[in-house]
Structures are given as structure tokens and as C-alpha cells.
């Protein structure tokens, strides 16, 4: 008996049995670029968490003897017009940019996801109403809509996140709607109906788990986008206000000193780019890993 059980078990192991998650992870691991993105995100996350330990100076620590000094051993990314250490400000700013990215995307994902899922599941008039409203918002270029919202709410970090978050809602509503709609087309949804499943059972056991993959990909890619939008608004002075070391705001401040202190504008921009790049790399990799058909 026992031997038979073990042979069966061995056979099962020999057949490469993997869940979808393991399968995805295996493919993701093979993608060097995606791994690089993931590593960078993890590192950035660590920098944000341990900013106080990593940054040699406080984000608003001014040193009037060292104004607009270029990169040196003490301030290896230079200092700004108030003698603050650019490196420290960027390190502290990572907290802001990452939270902006995650919070705005979460707002868009929850509200947009809810609207999109409702629209897809109920269809008909509900769908029409929700999606037409989303069309209206989408007809206003996103960045400009965010400017309108910020101008109504007043410039501040919180309002910035609200504005960019709202801006993201229609985007997610559309994606989740189409994702749920295409999942709904599968015969296994009908099969679940035939065995007497309730709507809720179908939504939670079949629709959501199967629609999640593309949403995850889009959310990852979207985080990068929202970071750019948010820093753009801060750059225009419509987002985070001084002395907050938001990267876009740092760039904006550096702009005035471009001719005398190039480092002030250069490095915050590099920080934004690297962060957004990391999310894009991971997003692309996830997409390829989740749907190998799309990988070319």
C-alpha cells in the first residue's frame, strides 16, 4: 500500500504540477528585465522606509555656508539654494513619490474597479450610464483634468493625490470592465450557473480571480504614470508645497538655478525616471509572464 502511495505521489511530482501563480513566477524569474524592475522597486521601498537612516541630513536641514555647492564628498549630489543636501532631499522624497504612486493608484483601482465591475456584470443601462460618464471624464486630457481638480481643491499634497486618483478612475473602470466582460464570455461561467451557483459565488469564485491578472499588470504600469503626473503638477507648483521634498517640486526649484547649479534639477529627475522605469519593467514582465501568448 505504502509503496503504491509513494509511486503515485512521485508520478504526481514528476508531472510538472504548478499552480498558475507558480507558473507565472517561474516565467517572471526568467525575465531579467522584470527581475531588475522588481529589485529596483524593492530597493526603493527600503530606501523610503529607512530614509531617516540612509539620508545623511534632514530634508529641510539648511546650511547657509554651503549654498548651491556642487557634488562633493559631504554632499555628493550637491546642495540647493538654501544649503540643503540634494541627496537627502531625494531620499526623503522617495517616500512621497512612492506613496503618491500607490495611493493614487489604489483610489483609481478601488473606485474605478468597482464601477467597471458593476458596469460589466449588470450591463445594459447601468453599464451605459457609468461608461458614458467615464467617457466624459476621458474626453478631458488627464493631466489637464487634474489641473482643474487641483485648482478647485487648492494646491497641497493631499489634494494632489485626490486629483490624480480621480483622474485614474475612468482608466481602471475601462480596463476592469473589459477584463470582466472577457472573463464572462468563458464557458466555465455558464458551467458555474448550470450547477446552481449564485451571482455572488460566480463573482467571487470565478470572475474576480480570473480578471485579476490583467488588472495587476495595468496597476503596476499605472503607478509609474501617476508618479509622472503628480510630479508634473508639483513642478507647476500645483502639488506638494515647499519645503516638502517631492521630486517634481525639487525639479521645479532647480529650474531657477539651472545655469548655476545643474545638479539641483538633474538628480531629482533621474530619481523619477528610475522609479517609473522600475514599475514599467515589472509591469511589462508581469504581462508577458501572465499571458505567454502575448510574449513574442
Amino acid at each position, binding site marked *: 500500500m505504502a509503496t503504491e502511495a509513494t509511486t503515485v505521489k512521485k508520478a504526481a511530482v514528476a508531472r510538472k504540477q504548478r499552480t498558475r501563480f507558480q507558473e507565472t513566477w517561474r516565467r517572471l524569474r526568467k525575465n531579467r528585465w522584470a527581475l531588475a524592475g522588481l529589485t529596483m522597486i524593492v530597493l526603493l521601498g527600503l530606501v523610503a522606509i529607512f530614509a531617516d537612516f540612509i539620508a545623511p541630513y534632514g530634508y529641510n536641514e539648511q546650511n547657509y555656508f554651503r549654498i548651491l555647492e556642487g557634488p562633493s564628498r559631504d554632499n555628493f549630489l550637491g546642495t540647493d539654494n538654501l544649503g540643503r543636501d540634494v541627496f537627502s532631499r531625494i531620499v526623503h522624497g522617495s517616500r512621497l513619490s512612492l506613496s503618491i504612486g500607490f495611493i493614487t493608484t489604489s483610489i483609481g483601482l478601488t473606485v474605478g474597479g468597482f464601477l467597471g465591475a458593476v458596469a460589466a456584470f449588470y450591463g445594459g443601462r447601468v453599464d451605459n450610464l457609468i461608461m*458614458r*460618464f467615464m*467617457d*466624459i*471624464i*476621458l*474626453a*478631458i*486630457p*488627464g*493631466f*489637464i*483634468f487634474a*489641473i*482643474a*481638480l*487641483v*485648482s*478647485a481643491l*487648492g494646491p497641497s499634497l493631499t489634494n494632489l493625490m485626490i486629483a490624480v486618483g480621480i483622474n485614474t478612475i475612468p482608466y481602471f473602470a475601462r480596463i476592469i470592465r473589459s477584463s470582466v466582460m472577457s472573463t464572462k464570455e468563458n464557458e466555465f461561467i455558464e458551467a458555474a450557473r448550470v450547477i446552481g451557483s449564485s451571482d455572488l459565488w460566480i463573482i467571487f469564485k470565478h470572475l474576480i480571480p480570473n480578471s485579476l491578472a490583467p488588472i495587476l499588470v495595468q496597476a503596476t504600469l499605472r503607478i*509609474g504614470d501617476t508618479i*509622472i*503626473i503628480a*510630479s*508634473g503638477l508639483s*513642478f*507647476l*507648483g*500645483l502639488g506638494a508645497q515647499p519645503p516638502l521634498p517631492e521630486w*517634481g517640486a525639487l*525639479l521645479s526649484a*532647480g*529650474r531657477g538655478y*539651472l*545655469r548655476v547649479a*545643474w545638479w539641483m*534639477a*538633474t538628480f*531629482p*529627475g533621474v530619481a*523619477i*525616471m528610475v522609479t*517609473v*522605469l522600475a514599475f*514599467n*519593467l515589472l509591469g*511589462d514582465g508581469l504581462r508577458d509572464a501572465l499571458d505567454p501568448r*502575448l510574449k*513574442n
Partner: protein
Amino acid sequence: MLKYIVKRLISMVPVIIGVTFVVFAIMHFTPGDPATLLLGEEAPPAEVERMRERMGLNDPFLVQYGNFLFGLFRLDLGFSLTTGRPVFNEIANRLPATIQLAAAAILVAIFIGVIMGIIASTRQYTVFDGGAMFVALLGVSMPNFWLGLMMILVFSVFWNNTFGYVLFPSSGFGTLRHLVMPAIVLGTAHAAFITRITRSSMLEVLRQDYIRTARSKGLNERVVVYLHALRNALMPVVTMAGLRFGVLLGGSVVTEQIFAIPGMGRLLVESVRSQNYTLVQGIILTYAIIFSLVNLAVDLLYAAIDPRIQVQYK
């Protein structure tokens, strides 16, 4: 075809009306009193109250919106709260610069993006592919305001320091030389986006059965790629590039700011800072209309490429 254009134009109307409502509502519930703004902080309260009455600010919300919409049909968008000039005129002054910039940027983007995308897709897994895709990835990850500053730094500041003259001016507008840097700055992200879409769309099309059919006829690879595949691959590219045009318009606001271009975007930022709501309202509406018109143009272009759509509207 004409019938199709008319139909699409009509379908734009409810969306635009919806946009006016959303924009009007946002502006309406904004803190701050336009009458005070117009007259200045020191104006006596009675005066302000008279102004509010005159501007219709005491009417119920829907009546105000009705008046606004009614004015819109006569191209009357109200008056700028800072200069007192009609909003319509203010926008009309600034529109050409914005349109020139956007057009230049999109031309640059399509040209570079499509070529890079084709190269990447036809030489999949080679250095060309990897290189093009990495550049494109950098392009979509780069904030354009940073790219703008870096270009000024290199081509105006450093260049001037080294060679003693300015290669491209860092601000102003009017000549082609002025347009070069802004167009590149604004077009880069779009070019990168188009590269990525073109590549994946081409790869998808190159896998299709009809491409195999074309090859089985003995066509050479160039004909297969440029004649049989490209036209099919361009359809999603055109659609996506159209939808993405909104991002480009948004980017133009920042680009105009950096290069001091007297366009709508700069006017928008100024108006927001001075809480000039009527002007903000008008500008956002104008952007939405431009965006919708571009998407209409994209649909028409699509119909021109795809016979399946032409037939529906013969």
C-alpha cells in the same frame, strides 16, 4: 463617408455637453468669490454684492449652468477675471502656439515611433530590437519636464559655455529653431509609446495566417512586412496614438511652461494661480474639444485604412 463623419460629429455633442457640465461643476464649487477677485480685496461689500448679482452668481446652480451653456452656443465664454477681456479672445490668441507645438511633436513622434517599431519587430531578439525597446522604455519613463530642462542645460547652457553661441534658444516662440527642442521634449514620450505599440502590433500581425499565406505565395519579406503586415498593424497604432494624444496635450502644458511658449497651457497655469476661473473653464473646454476632434480624425483615418469600416458607411 460623409454620413459617417456627420454621425461621428453628432455623437461628439453629448460628450462635449457632459464635459461642460463637469468642468462647470468643478469650477462652481471651488472656494473663492469671482466677484471679489474681479473687484479686488478692498472693494466695499455692497459693490461686490452688486457685481455678484450682475454676474448671475446668486442664481441657482442649474440656472447658472444654463446661462453658461447658452453663452457657449454664441461662443461667449464670459470674461477673464483678471484682464476683463472676453475669454474667447484670450484663448484664440494663445491657441496657434499650442497647436503648432502639438502638431510638430506628433509628427516627430509618429515618424520616429513607427520606424523604430518596425525595426524592432522585424529584427526580433536582435540588438536592434533590444536597443529600440530599451530606448522606448526610457522614453515612456522619463518626465518630459525633466527632459526639457536637460535639453536646455545641454543645448543652451553648456553649448553656449563651450562654443560661445546658442544652438537652440531655450525660450520664446516663432521660428523653427525655437520649435526644435519643445517638439522633441513633447514628442519623446509619444514616440516611445508609438514604438512599443507598433512593435507589439507588428509582431501580432506577423503571426497571422494571412502573412503565412503571403509568404506561401513567394512574396519577398519586404513586401510581406511593408505591404501586407504594416497596413494591418497600423490600425491599433492609430487608435492608441489617438487616445494617447490626451497625454501629449497634458504634456504641452508643462512644455510651454519650460520653454516660455505663449500657448494655452501657460495661460492655464497662470489662470489657475490667479484663480481666474472663467478662463480656466474656457481653456479646459478648448482642450477637450481639440482632443475630441483629434479622435474624430483618428476614426476617419482608421476608416480609410480598414475596408471593413468603409463598407458600413458606403
